[in-house]
């Protein structure tokens, strides 16, 4: 029995060190399940990307850690994105995603920001086209990225006066005032709005 365990441990170490390419067989389908970076194909668990095999012997799952972390990553539920508002109505906005979990993304994906859960009554949209916002991905149903601002990290990171384009200052969490023309406007600001606005200036 001890020898069997030793062999199992050796096998595990041997698998752990393996670098694999797409199509490389990792295990039989009966022995392991396919985790991230692996797929069941032809009765086997095979690698689906270039990387390093990382087997979970307890969960009997094979995963492949990608060699390049920054590529082919699409937003998933729970991710935070940073993007620019393309268009905004009172309860819905379209956002061009420019970073996923603070990693820049050039995929030009767009998400749909819903503000229906915002129970504070507003006369206008709390975000405006051109604002840079941080939002949370709450769903990827039908491969549409549903975004929400209902998180303390989320909200507007950078904005300008919607009347004159001038620099604005925060008036609490929900409003800004233009430093040049004095116009006040609704904005759902992020908790680090001031920090981001300063870094842009």
């Amino acid at each position, binding site marked *: 029995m001890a020898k069997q365990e030793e062999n199992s441990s050796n096998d595990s170490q041997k698998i752990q060190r393996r670098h694999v390419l*797409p199509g*490389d067989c990792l295990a039989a389908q009966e022995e392991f399940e396919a985790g991230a970076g692996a797929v069941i*194909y032809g009765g086997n668990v095979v690698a*689906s*990307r*270039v990387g390093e095999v990382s087997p979970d012997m307890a969960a009997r799952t094979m995963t492949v850690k990608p*060699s390049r972390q920054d*590529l082919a990553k699409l937003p998933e539920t729970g991710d935070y994105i940073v993007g620019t508002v393309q268009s905004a109505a009172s309860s819905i906005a379209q956002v061009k995603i420019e970073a996923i979990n603070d990693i820049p993304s050039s995929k030009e*994906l767009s998400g749909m920001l819903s503000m229906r859960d915002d129970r504070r009554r507003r006369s206008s949209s709390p975000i405006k086209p051109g604002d840079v916002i941080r939002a949370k991905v709450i769903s990827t149903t039908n491969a549409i990225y549903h975004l929400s601002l209902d998180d303390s990290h989320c909200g507007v990171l950078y904005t300008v006066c919607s009347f004159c384009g001038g620099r604005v200052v925060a008036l609490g969490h929900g409003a800004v005032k233009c430093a040049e023309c004095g116009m006040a406007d609704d904005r759902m600001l992020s908790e680090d709005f001031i920090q981001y606005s300063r870094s842009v200036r």
Partner: protein
Amino acid sequence: MGKAGGDSAALINEQGLRLDGRRIDELRPIRIEVGILRNADGSAYIQFGKNKIMAAVYGPKEVHPKHSALPDKSVLRCRYHMSPFSTEERKNPAPSRREIEISKVIREALEPALMLEDYPRTAIDVFVEVLQSDGGSRCAGISAASVALADAGINMRDLVSACAAGKVAGQIVMDVDDTEDKEGQADLPIAIMPMSSQVTLLQLDGQLNDEEFHKAFNFALDGCRRVYQLQREALIGKYFGNNGGNSDGGL
């Protein structure tokens, strides 16, 4: 356009060597480099004899126009293009009928290997740019594009390797070059997913009988497997260093 099949006796000499000195079962020298374009998500360069081909992959990314997006998988778009300076006579840079057809067959050769369902409502663009051509550029392009897709981190069931065989001076030969392609009697390019032994492309230009077809197919298959080893070496060299990978993809 069918094969001319004219006076081709001189294409193979008495010692059984071809015009460029190769035996009938010999590939041209092949060199593959990975990740050489900074602005592409994935890229590869292949020298397949005198062919010099660059492959670049962009994506997965937003689809434009948006109505062409698919709700359940990514749209794979391929463009095979020969540069004006890639041929002996200047080639018109506008896409020709042949280039449009090869773009289609490259897409169809790569599609079975890609897990497009992992990237719904997106597009993956593959550009195959022929800088210098010498026959067999579609096979070299497929092999380079497959490596570029792996370099881009696109989920794949397998790599795709391609090679051609043909009939020249009455003999079945591996990996036909431009002269053999034009003067020979048949050309059989194939692409395979080597680890799962599946054929993703099979074309035949010319005429072969049953026996010749089987021999040519096996020659092309053997060529694909040799190309696959070079694809592996190129990817392992890029990502893990020359000693970093334990290449166990033997076939």
